[in-house]
Structure formats: C-alpha cells, structure tokens
C-alpha cells in the first residue's frame, strides 16, 4: 500500500493529514500490518489537550495492545466514533481511517515530521 505523499509521519507509525491548523491522525499501513486484526480502539474526548508524543489512546488487536501517540501538540476537536463499532476498517483502509482531528497549537512541530519517502525508508 502506498503512503500518501501529502501526509506527515512519525517514527511511532502515526500519520497526520494537515489542513490549515488542523490535522487528521491515524496509524500507517505498516502499523496495522504489525498489529494484525484490530478489535478495539480507545480514543480521547473532544477537548483533550495533548503534547507531541503523548499517548492519546490505545489500539488493541487480537495479539497485543499498543499506545497511540500524538504527532503534534494541540487539542482534540473531533473523534471518529465510527471506529468504535468498525475498528477493522483500520486494517482494511488504514490511511483513510482517521482517529482524531487535532487543532495544532505549535504548527512548527509538523515541519519536523517525516515525509512519505522518509517514512517508507524507515519501514523498509
């Protein structure tokens, strides 16, 4: 699966799709492959404030539980509650399965994240 060129990526295998001062956040195709069948996602409430690298939730597969880390500092403005009932879409379409939308309070952080090419090299 191709990694969208417009996204930014973290070494912890999250992606962020930026639009103005907001960004949709999810996990990468590589991450979902490593996790295997996802059965549960625990996401924060709207209004939660996060620092870059802070855990914003957990994702659970049949095999294991993993933390989800925020790529940037900011505030949760929207949560994809549909994932609660259909967590398996993270496996089938990871780059469309956004989990939260974060309003960035330190937009400069995003510039330091990996681009698609750098991320692809990381997971090669």
């Amino acid at each position, binding site marked *: 699966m191709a990694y969208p060129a417009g996204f930014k990526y973290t070494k912890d295998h999250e992606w962020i799709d930026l639009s103005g001062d907001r960004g949709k956040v999810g996990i990468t195709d590589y991450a979902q492959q490593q996790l*295997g*069948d996802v*059965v*549960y996602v625990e996401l924060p409430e709207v209004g939660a404030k996060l620092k870059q690298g802070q855990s914003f939730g957990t994702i659970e597969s*049949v095999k294991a539980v993993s933390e989800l880390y925020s790529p940037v500092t900011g505030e949760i403005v929207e949560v994809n509650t549909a994932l609660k009932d259909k967590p398996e879409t993270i496996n089938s379409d990871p780059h469309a399965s956004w989990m939260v939308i974060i309003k960035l309070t330190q937009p400069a952080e995003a510039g330091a994240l990996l681009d698609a090419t750098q991320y692809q090299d990381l997971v090669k």
Partner: protein
Amino acid sequence: MEQTIAALKKTPLNARHRASGARMVPFAGWDMPVEYSGITAEHLAVRERAGLFDVSHMGEIEIAGKDALAAVQRISSNDASRLAVGQAQYSGLLTPEGTFVDDLLVYRQGPSHFMLVVNAGNIAADYAWIADGIKPAGDAVAVDASSRYALIAIQGPAAQAILQTLTAIDLASIKYYWFTHGEVANVRATVSRTGYTGEDGFEIFVPPQSADKVWLALMQAGEAQGILPCGLGARDTLRLEAGMRLHGNDIDTTTTALEADLGWIVGWKKEDFTGAAALRAQKAAGVTRKIVGFEMLERGIARHGYDAYIGDEKVGVVTSGTQTPYLKKSIGMGYLPAEHTTAGGEFDVDIRGRRTRARIVAMPFYKRKA
C-alpha cells in the same frame, strides 16, 4: 538482539515458513510462525475448512522398559493403565503439591512403550523431572526423542478428506484420541486423531527430514478445500475458544489440577503418583478458588495477568483472554474464589485502569457439532 535470534531453535519447516511469508516470532526458545494470512482468516479456515500447523517445537519423551507402565503411572496424573496400545490420553505432570510442571499427551505405543508429548518450553525441565521421577519404578528408561520427530497438525472439518488422499490408512476407523502407524505422502508417519483447536483433525509425526515434503503435499491436497497454513496466533485463539488450558498461562506450578477444573485427568483410583496425596486432601477439603470461563459484557480484551474484582475487592486473576474470530466475542479464563464461580455470575476486570464487566459462562465456549 541478533544473538537472541541466532540462538532460537528452528523446526524442520522453518525455511518453508519464511519462504511462505509467515510473520515469525520467538516462542519458548523457538523461531515460530505467529501468522501467515492473519489470525482471523486462519482461525475461520480451521472452523470451516482446514488449517495446517507446524507444531514440531513440541517435545517427545519416550519411556520404555519392563516397568514402563509403572513409571508412567508414577509421574503422570491420569490413569495410563486404561490406555490400550494405539490410544492416547490427556494428562498432567504434577508436583507433590498437585500443581503443573506441564500438561501432556500420553501415547501408548506398545505394552511397555509410551510416548509423552510435552510443551516446547518445558522439554528440558520435563525430561529431568521424568528421568528422576521414574527411578523408583524399576526397569524403565526415559529418552528425549524430540529431535527425531517433526509434528504437523491438520485441523478442521475437511481434515480427514484432505489427509485421506495422501494415505492408505483408513482414517475413518481412527477414533478420537487414538493413533496408528502408516505412510503419509510416502513418508513413514504416526497419525493421531488429536489436536488443540476444538475441531476434528489429526496430528502427524514424521521424520524431520521429510517434514517439508509432507507439509507441501498436505497444502496441495487441501488447496481445493481452501486449506490455510496457520500460526501460533490462531492456535491460541482456537484452543481458547475450545476451553483448552495453556500451560504457562492457565496452569502452572501455582495451580492445582482441581483448581484448574481438571479433576478428570487425575487417576483417583491409582495407588500412588506424584501429587496424589495433596490432591486427595484438596478434594476432601474443597478448593478455595477455581478456573472459570467468562465473556466480556463491555468492549475490551481481558489479558493474562489482569486483575479480577468483585466490588472494590481484588478477588482473582485473568489467565487467558482474546477476541474470538468465530464467536466474535471477547472471552477468557481466570481464577475466582470458589463461591463466585457459578455461570451467570458477574465480576469486573481491570483493563488498564478501566473496570470492565465480565460474566461467567460455561466452557468450552465453542463445541463442534458431532
């Protein structure tokens, strides 16, 4: 890290797994496939069609000699005198306290020849325990024969039809927990109607050098029925759905056969065996805690080691838990106080700080149609 990987043991099918694109993980000192196409797909293949497992990491310890039966009777909990030649039984290797050094299958190969199939991580410890334990029995010797066998399991409703195309053995005549010798894909084999999935199927012991040939033949023979190679991940979800205990998770040296609700593998009528006195005393007094099966009433998976609560009181522990691909429920096993083990009773599991409701249900969670 790399040193650790180099030190891992490899089954004769290791290269096959890697060539087939399996995800490999270290398990009990072995480099083993955890999944090929995915736990869910593999699990469903076994429930609905057939799955193929490499379980060559399991150990085989043989006991032979004039007093072999007496030796096996001493060191294993079940009554091996009830086995005919060609029959197998589930049993325990117990401590004097009646707890589990390991669980195992005992195969009666001959009147005075037994084969014990033990868990991969326990082979060395089991062998030492057995060699020491059988000394008083007289003329019997134990041999760790693990390296002489590869073990392939074919499991699922189509297992018999697939395997039958590769052997002259009349598989329909092998009853559950019986075995016979013959050839599979022109390879000398012992074929046993056993498994760890809750499904019908066979376990096939073959010489290590022929394992790949048998594996490929089975994959090819099962292609039309949709056979899938399966890893340890599906093996675990399948055995849990079938209510089967996993040594190291659900039973170990801290849990007795009675607490694990495995009184049926204790030969109560046998004169003496390791653990007998403790188990008889516990049976008379009654257990204070017991294993239960449960399903989660709220989202989340209760995993090994999570605490169980009734109200604010910590009362027990989860020993296994998973989301089952077939029943599509979050289920598990754990130990609770004996007075709180009635089906329908509820308790909470602490899932990473979140109290999550669970209900006790009868095991097995899944039972195949006869």
